[in-house]
């Protein structure tokens, strides 16, 4: 009985330590960023407003505090592996925020985040199992080398997909919150129905949920903070790591379908990795009516946002609402996949 109360208390700490830290530190941190001139144009406002950026360092500190709480409370190495991958992705993102890395350099460097994450499996083999579980079909046989290579490659893919969902006020914070909740549902079902319930694996998802919730307060329309690449890449690395340690890779892939489509559209229309600041034409523009419009130019990149705006011009707030609806549907599919995989 006492053990369960303690475990429940640790779950609460895993959520509230990063959330309270983030909400308390955000105002002074944003004032600091503004004072040292780290502000960016909110390009989709007319005229553009200045917003403090990057909030990534504070987001990472909050995640770190949450994961260290879980590691200390449960004596688990899983949170340490997660922060290793997220920390490297954060550092690469921060370098990109400060110096702007090339369109091909960034994905290559992000392989290091995957290497940092999987290196923990050599210390603690139980951090992840090297098989995939599919709904109704069951598990693949374990293949450590193939799985580990795929895990490393997953980091640049997922982090870039998150990065490409970071264009409008509230888009990345809503996306991270909804997809992390879908992951949480998957990990809970995995732990309950797979046997050998591990509270630490469930708890290690909570700092990401908490930080996405806290960031949403400052990032939603009209945004008072931008995360920068340091934030979005760190969110993506956390997501990839949780999917692997939680054994919910397929459900994670389904929750990410809007981001996968977004990356797929962009890569297929610009034919390769191009830094977004260097794209020759923009997918969207602000019309004289103050609404966001899809570009009708033939060479405009096909982002998910352009496809939404092709249906009708929208305000930035309504555009993000539409994207959130698409993400929510994908997350519902993801939870369905988790139920099919673990319950049925």
């Amino acid at each position: 009985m006492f053990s369960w109360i303690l475990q429940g208390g640790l779950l609460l700490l895993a959520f509230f330590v990063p959330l309270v830290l983030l909400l308390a530190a955000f105002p002074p941190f944003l004032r600091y960023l503004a004072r040292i001139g780290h502000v960016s144009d909110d390009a989709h406002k007319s005229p553009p407003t200045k917003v403090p950026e990057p909030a990534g360092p504070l987001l990472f500190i909050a995640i770190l505090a949450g994961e260290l709480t879980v590691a200390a409370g449960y004596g688990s190495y899983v949170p340490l592996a997660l922060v290793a991958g997220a920390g490297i992705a954060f550092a690469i993102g921060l370098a990109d925020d400060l110096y702007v890395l090339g369109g091909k350099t960034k994905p290559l460097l992000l392989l290091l985040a995957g290497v940092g994450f999987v290196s923990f499996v050599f210390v603690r083999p139980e951090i992840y199992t090297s098989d995939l579980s599919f709904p109704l079909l069951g598990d693949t046989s374990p293949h450590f080398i193939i799985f580990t290579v795929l895990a490393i490659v997953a980091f640049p893919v997922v982090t870039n997909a998150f990065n490409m969902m970071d264009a409008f006020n509230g888009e990345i914070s809503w996306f991270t919150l909804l997809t992390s909740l879908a992951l949480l549902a998957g990990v809970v079902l995995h732990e309950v129905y797979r046997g050998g319930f591990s509270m630490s694996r469930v708890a290690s998802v909570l700092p990401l949920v908490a930080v996405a919730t806290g960031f949403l307060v400052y990032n939603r329309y009209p945004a008072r903070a931008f995360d920068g690449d340091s934030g979005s890449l760190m969110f993506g690395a956390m997501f990839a790591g949780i999917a692997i340690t939680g054994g919910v890779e397929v459900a994670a892939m389904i929750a990410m379908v809007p981001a996968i489509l977004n990356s797929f559209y962009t890569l297929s229309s610009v034919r390769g990795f191009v830094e977004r600041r260097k794209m020759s034409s923009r997918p969207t523009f602000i019309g004289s009516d103050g609404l966001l419009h899809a570009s009708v130019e033939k060479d405009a990149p096909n982002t998910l946002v352009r496809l939404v705006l092709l249906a009708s011009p929208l305000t930035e707030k309504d555009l993000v609402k539409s994207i959130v609806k698409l993400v929510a549907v994908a997350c519902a599919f993801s939870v369905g996949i988790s139920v099919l995989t673990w319950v049925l």
Partner: protein
Amino acid sequence: MKLLPLYLIESVAFLLIIAETYVFFIFVVPLGSIPHTLTEYTSLALLKVFLILVLGAVWFFVLDELTGLYVRSKVGSSPRPSS
């Protein structure tokens, strides 16, 4: 309702992932008898890699066509607002 075509594209992407997973496990993984020589082993591995690439290409082609259809239908019908 304006988002309906995008929900459909999203659903097709989801269903294709599930269907292709099924094809992968039911048809591609058990393909061929147990290889006895290095040549047989290599040929079988290459065949399976090729089939995985085909599955990827099918996903890419179907979504590219659906998206192209959606973009063409919208670009053709939308007026050009002044920027």
